[in-house]
């Protein structure tokens, strides 16, 4: 019973509109000029599918802003160099937060809008649904979703700029253990995760890492996305006597969990699983109570502030990782089109797979570069541990990426 208006905004740029008007008046004057003779600038349609309403709307909006930033900058700087200055036209569609809609929207973007590539869709469950469509149509899908399945099915047209969920889950555990002084100091941990594709694959990584380290998992609990009462979860957590809690949540659930923990004065370290734990709204809603919360993340804005500060200037908030990674997704697409001098889907796919990206937004990712392997996974992507320090997120681990020292919270 959710609203159903997938194509939300066809992003038409001011200049584009003016050009189109010129074209129209020219047509009027010339009377019967054939269409092909019209001096219309070429545009390349890029499909963007994001959850702009429903449970994951906030992430969708952040992601869209990252993409818009890159598109506007490139268009302002003269468009696609490899295609004679063709402009990028973003076709942004709302997948809502349900996979069925995401797949329908993908169909439409490819068939009706002739998009040369699809970017999106933040939530793994949505991206998985889209990938079925893009694979069938042979259209490249560039994503920052985490699920292992994305690049684990032998698909030829999926490109994952971030580390896989299981890798992130492992790092979430291992980094936390390292920060607490080694696995010998940690005996009991708790895992709470939302039960869609994202939470499930991250939890699998967490579980595996804890097992490898011989650490007892005293609580391992899935909960439904859209949960409204976490009291039973937190009661169980308290009874479990865990020393570290690893919650993997989107926004709403992350707020509920942290508040319930603070209420019950449970002061064990919270090591979140990205998503809800690393967006500005988390700190906005929790205020001082956010300070000290750790989270694993697939990128962070302090790794390359040259690019990410431009986002802050325009949108008045730090550039959350999904915005960074979606900016990166569009930028690697642009670099591929420029290098291939073509916006044909098969040319883009081939170039994406063969190139190593070291310029532009690629620098914001860990190790400063991107290279996709056979499965479409970015081999240079590594997770980082971030921490809330005075309403900003600082990268605190591993040492080779760290920008700040980890602080401990005393409540």
């Amino acid at each position, binding site marked *: *019973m*959710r*609203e159903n*208006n997938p194509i939300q905004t066809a992003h038409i740029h001011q200049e584009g509109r003016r050009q189109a008007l010129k074209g129209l008046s020219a047509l009027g004057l010339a009377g019967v000029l054939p269409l092909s003779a019209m001096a219309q600038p070429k545009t390349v349609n890029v499909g963007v599918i994001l959850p*702009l*309403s*429903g*449970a994951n*709307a*906030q992430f*969708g*909006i952040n992601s869209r802003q990252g993409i818009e930033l890159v598109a506007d900058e490139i268009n302002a700087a003269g468009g696609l160099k490899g295609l004679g200055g063709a402009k990028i036209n973003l076709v942004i569609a709302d997948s809502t937060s349900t996979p069925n809609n995401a797949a329908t929207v993908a169909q439409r973007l490819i068939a009706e809008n002739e998009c040369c590539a699809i970017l999106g869709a933040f939530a793994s469950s949505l991206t998985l649904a889209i990938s079925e469509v893009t694979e069938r149509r042979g259209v490249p899908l560039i994503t920052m979703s985490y699920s292992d399945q994305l690049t684990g099915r032998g698909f030829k047209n999926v490109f994952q700029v971030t580390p896989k969920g299981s890798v992130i889950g492992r790092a979430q555990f291992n980094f936390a253990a390292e920060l607490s002084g080694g696995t010998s100091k940690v005996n009991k941990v708790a895992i709470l995760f939302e*039960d869609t594709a994202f939470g499930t694959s991250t939890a699998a990584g967490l579980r595996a890492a804890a097992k490898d380290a011989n650490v007892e998992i005293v609580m391992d*609990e*899935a*909960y*439904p996305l*859209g*949960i*409204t*009462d976490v*009291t*039973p*979860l937190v*009661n*169980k957590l308290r*009874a479990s006597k865990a020393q570290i809690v690893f919650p993997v949540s989107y*926004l*709403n659930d992350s*707020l*509920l969990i942290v*508040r*319930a923990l*603070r*209420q*019950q*004065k449970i002061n064990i370290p919270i090591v979140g699983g990205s998503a809800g734990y690393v967006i500005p*709204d988390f700190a*906005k*809603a*929790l*205020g001082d*109570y956010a300070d000290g919360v750790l989270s694993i993340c697939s990128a962070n804005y302090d790794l390359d502030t040259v690019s990410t500060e431009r986002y802050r200037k325009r949108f008045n908030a730090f550039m959350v990782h999904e915005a960074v990674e979606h900016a990166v997704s569009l930028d690697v697409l642009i670099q591929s089109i420029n290098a291939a001098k073509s916006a044909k889907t098969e040319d883009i796919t081939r170039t994406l797979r063969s190139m190593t990206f070291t310029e532009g937004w690629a620098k914001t990712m860990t190790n400063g570069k991107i290279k996709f392997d056979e499965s479409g996974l970015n081999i240079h992507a590594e997770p980082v541990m971030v921490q809330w320090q005075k309403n900003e997120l600082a990268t605190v681990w591993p040492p080779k990426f760290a920008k700040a020292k980890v602080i401990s919270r005393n409540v």
Partner: protein
Amino acid sequence: MPLLQAILDGLMLGGVYAVISIGLTLVFGVISIVNFAQAQFLMVGMYVAYFAWHFLGLDPIFGSVISFIVVFLLGYGVQHLLIRRVLKAPEVAQIFLTVGLLIVLENLALILVGSEFKSVQTWSQNESLEFAGLIISMPYAIAFLASGVAGVMVWWLLAKTWWGRTVRATAQDPMAAKLMGIDPEKIYRMSFGLGVALTAFGGAVILPYLTVSPSVGEQFGVLMFTVVVLGGLGNVLGAVVGGLAVGVIQSLSGLFLPLQLQNMVLFIVFILTLAFRPEGLLRNKS
């Protein structure tokens, strides 16, 4: 001890379920219309309280009064402009109207306030009460108390005042009420307003422990119907019992089963009630 704690948590939760469901059951009991958009009025109430906090710095517990008034007026208008026209129409038309209202309200909210999750910050959010090893979260306790006060006021209004008597008379037999000089149209407007306003009030008092977004109603819609069906559609006392029962069932099933099955247990109870006791747990009309 965990059992006692779970029951306590469930009661806290259930108190709020009760008050938001009284609104739904009231609308059905008096006007004989099933309002599928009821939960969207909860969303409106949450937004009003959120903006009262955002712009005026009002704690949602006080903001809830504003929510009540604003949504009362909204409901009054909706009854007059829309619902009134389908009262004599086939049930299908009534369903279409209220479901349509649901979609319109949700999308209006999307357009007007955007799809971001909004959340308030209050002193109570990170506090709790502790006694004898039991913990009650402060925002839940406050919401429970506020719901209790609202519930008692509604009971008093319906059972003890002249206006309440006219409402009950209209619910029983609109024609006879009309012969006694009661204007049913007016009663309907007031009742619909009161019904949705109560739900909105409930939305406002739970704001400190939730976040609000245009689709928040979806989490509560089915829940509210479970509550009123458990208690018997149109039965105010039933809604209270149903609300508390649903809260406790949710909480207890969270204790014994994986949390994912929480709602499944609830709906099994729902289906069983419909199958074996469709009139609800309480038989008498209040």
